[in-house]
C-alpha cells in the first residue's frame, strides 16, 4: 500500500498493462493535461515504452478512427483527446464506428479501445474546454463510460478498460489529479458496473461521480455536524450502471440527491433519478433532488464559473431540501 496521487495511480495502471501486453499502444500527448508536475509523472511511460506512444497531429477524427481500426485488427489502443470538448470532433467515430462494430458484425469483430478525456470545470476553461460529455456517450449504444474519483479506483478501472474488449470512454478530471489516496502496489482490476459506497450514512443517499464525489464528502462532513448522516454512493461507471447498489442505498435512506457537473437535461444524474423512481419508488420518503450545472455554456470568469457549478454549499442545501 502506498499513498500516491490520482495522477500517479492512473499512470501506474497504464504502465502495468503496457508491461504485460506487448501490443497495447497509446496515441496522444500530455495525457495528464500538460502541467509541469504531471509531465514528470507521465515521463515514466515515455522512459519505459518510448516506441509504444505516438505523438499525433491535431486530428481527432483520424486518431479515433485509427484507434478503432487498430483495435479491431488486434492491437488494443489508448487514445487521448485532451478535454471532453475536443472529443466531440471524433463523436462520429466513437458513436458510429466504435459503438456499433461488434453489433453490426454479430460479434465477429471487437473494439478493445479506450478513449481518454478530461471533463468538467477546470478553472478558466470557458465554454470550449469545460464540457462534461458523459451523458452524450452514455446515450449512444455500445460505449462503456467510466468516471473514477479516487487514486485507488482509477488504477483498477483503467486496467479493466485497457484489458477488456469493449470500446470505453474513460473520463478523468484535472482537478482531482493531485488527490492523494491509498493504492495497492500490486495489479488489480475493478469491474465495470460495480459502484462503491464512499461514505455510509442512514439519512440521505447522494450519488456522484468524479470530482463531485469529493464535494459530496465535504458536504457530508458539514452535515454530520448538524446530525444529518449522508451516504455517498460512487457508481464509478455510468455505463454499465450499478443500479442495485444505488437502489439498495435508497431503500435504506429513503432519500436521493444526484449531483454532477454536466447540465441537468438528459444527464446521467437524471437517468439515475428516473431509474430510482421506477425501481425503488416505494422506498422514497421525499421527492428526488437533482443538482447539476446551470444550463448555460461555461463562463470564464471565476465567480461566474462558481455560480453555475455545484459547490459544496449547494450540495449541503440540496441534502437539506431532501430531508425537509
Amino acid at each position, binding site marked *: 500500500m502506498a499513498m500516491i496521487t490520482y495522477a500517479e495511480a492512473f499512470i501506474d495502471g497504464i504502465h502495468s498493462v503496457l508491461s504485460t501486453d506487448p501490443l497495447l499502444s497509446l496515441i496522444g500527448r500530455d495525457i495528464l493535461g500538460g502541467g509541469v508536475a504531471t509531465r514528470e509523472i507521465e515521463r515514466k511511460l515515455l522512459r519505459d515504452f518510448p516506441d509504444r506512444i505516438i505523438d499525433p497531429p491535431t*486530428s481527432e477524427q*483520424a486518431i479515433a478512427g*485509427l484507434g478503432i481500426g487498430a483495435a*479491431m*485488427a488486434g*492491437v488494443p489502443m489508448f487514445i487521448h483527446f485532451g478535454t471532453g470538448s475536443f472529443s466531440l470532433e471524433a463523436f462520429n467515430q466513437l458513436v458510429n*464506428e466504435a459503438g456499433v462494430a461488434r453489433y453490426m458484425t454479430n460479434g465477429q469483430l471487437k473494439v478493445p479501445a479506450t478513449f481518454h478525456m478530461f471533463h468538467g470545470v477546470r478553472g478558466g476553461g470557458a465554454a470550449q474546454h469545460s464540457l462534461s460529455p458523459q451523458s452524450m456517450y452514455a446515450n449512444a449504444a455500445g460505449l462503456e463510460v467510466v468516471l473514477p474519483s479516487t487514486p485507488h479506483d482509477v488504477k483498477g478501472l483503467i486496467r479493466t478498460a485497457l484489458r477488456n474488449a469493449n470500446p470505453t470512454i474513460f473520463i478523468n478530471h484535472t482537478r482531482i489529479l493531485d488527490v492523494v489516496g491509498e493504492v495497492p502496489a500490486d495489479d488489480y482490476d475493478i469491474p465495470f458496473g460495480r459502484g462503491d459506497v464512499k461514505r455510509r450514512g442512514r439519512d440521505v443517499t447522494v450519488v456522484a461521480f468524479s470530482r463531485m464525489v469529493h464535494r459530496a464528502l465535504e458536504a457530508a462532513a458539514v452535515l454530520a455536524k448538524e446530525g444529518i448522516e449522508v451516504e455517498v454512493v460512487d457508481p464509478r461507471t455510468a455505463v*454499465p450502471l450499478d443500479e442495485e447498489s444505488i437502489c439498495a442505498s435508497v431503500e435504506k435512506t429513503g432519500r436521493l440527491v444526484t449531483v454532477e457537473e454536466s447540465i441537468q437535461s438528459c444527464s446521467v444524474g437524471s437517468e439515475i433519478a428516473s431509474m430510482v423512481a421506477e425501481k425503488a419508488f416505494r422506498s422514497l420518503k421525499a421527492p428526488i433532488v437533482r443538482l447539476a450545472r446551470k444550463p448555460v455554456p461555461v463562463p470564464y470568469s471565476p465567480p461566474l464559473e462558481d455560480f453555475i457549478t455545484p459547490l459544496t454549499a449547494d450540495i449541503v442545501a440540496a441534502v437539506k431540501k431532501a430531508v425537509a
Partner: protein
Amino acid sequence: MRNDLSADQQRTLFARMLLMRRFDEAVLDMEDDHGSFGRSVASIGNEGPIAALSLLTRPTDLLCSTHRNHGHVTAMGADPMRSFAEILGRADGLTGGKAGTLHLCAPDKGFLSTSAMVGGANALAVGAAFAQQRKKAGGIAVSLLGDGTLDEGITYECLNLASLLSLPVLFLCENNAKAGERPSSMLAAKALLDVPRALSLPTLSVDGADAEAIYLALVDIVDRVRKGTPYFVECRLERWPGMRNHASRAQLRHTDISLGWDRAAIGGPHAAWLTDSDPVLKLAERLVERRVMTADALLALDRETMARLRDDRARAEASPFPAPGAALEHVFG
C-alpha cells in the same frame, strides 16, 4: 516488373469479376422480387480494382470497404449465399442480419467493419495499417475508398497520418465522379491525385475498367506498401449507367458477355459504356482473342456461375429471420 498475366491468372481474374457481376444482377432481381428494404448499392462496373487486388493479397492482409461493398466481399471469397441472406436480413447472413446490404462484411476474409460513413473506411484502414506495423509480419491494409471520400475532412487527416507514420496502407480509390449528372465528389483540386500528392504520398492513376492493367500496376505497389510506403492508386471508372434511373437499369440489367467478343452487336443507348467501360466485356474480349478461353468455355462458365448463384439465392431465401431476441446480442462482451 511483369508485363503480362499468366493464363491461369487471367482466367481467375475473369471468373471473379463474372461472379461479382452476376451476383449484383441477382441482388437487383431479388430486391425487385422481394420489395427491397435495404436499398443496395451495386458494384456493377467497379469489378476491376478489387479483382486485381485479390490476386495479390495474403490471408493476413486487412481490407476496409464502404457502402458499395458487394463486389469487394464477393471477390475476396465471401459465400454468396450468406451475402444474399444478409441482404434479406436472415439469420444465415454474413453478420446474422444485423448489418444488411450497406455493410456486407466478411471478417474471415480480412475485412474490418464495413462503414457507410463517407470516409470511415479510410480511418479504419489507417488503424488496420497501424496494427500491421505493430505486428511486424508484413501485412498491409487496404482502403477501398470512393472519390466521394475526398469531400470529407477525415480523409485528409487519414492521408496525412498515413504519410507521417509511414503506414503500410494502400488507398485503392474507385473514382467514378462524373460532371454533368450529380457528381459523387466536388473537388477544388485540378486532379484528385493532387490531394494525396500534397501530403507526400506516392500516387498512380490507372484505367479502372482494365483489370489487367490494374493488376500489373499493383504488383510492385503492394510490395512497396508491405515494406512501409503508403500509396494512393486512383482507378478511373465510368459509373454504370444502370445507377441512373429505372430505364437505364432495365436496358443494362443482365450482361450479355458475348458482346465481349462480338463487338459489332453492341448497340443501344449505352453502347459507349459497354464498349469502353465494362471491365467484364473488356477482359472477355481479350481472353477469346488470345485463345486463353474459347467463347464456348466462357459461356459455359457463365451458365455455371448463374446456376450456382440461383441456388445460393434460393438457400438464402429459405433461411429464417433471426429470433427477435438476437437484437439484444453482441453489444458488449
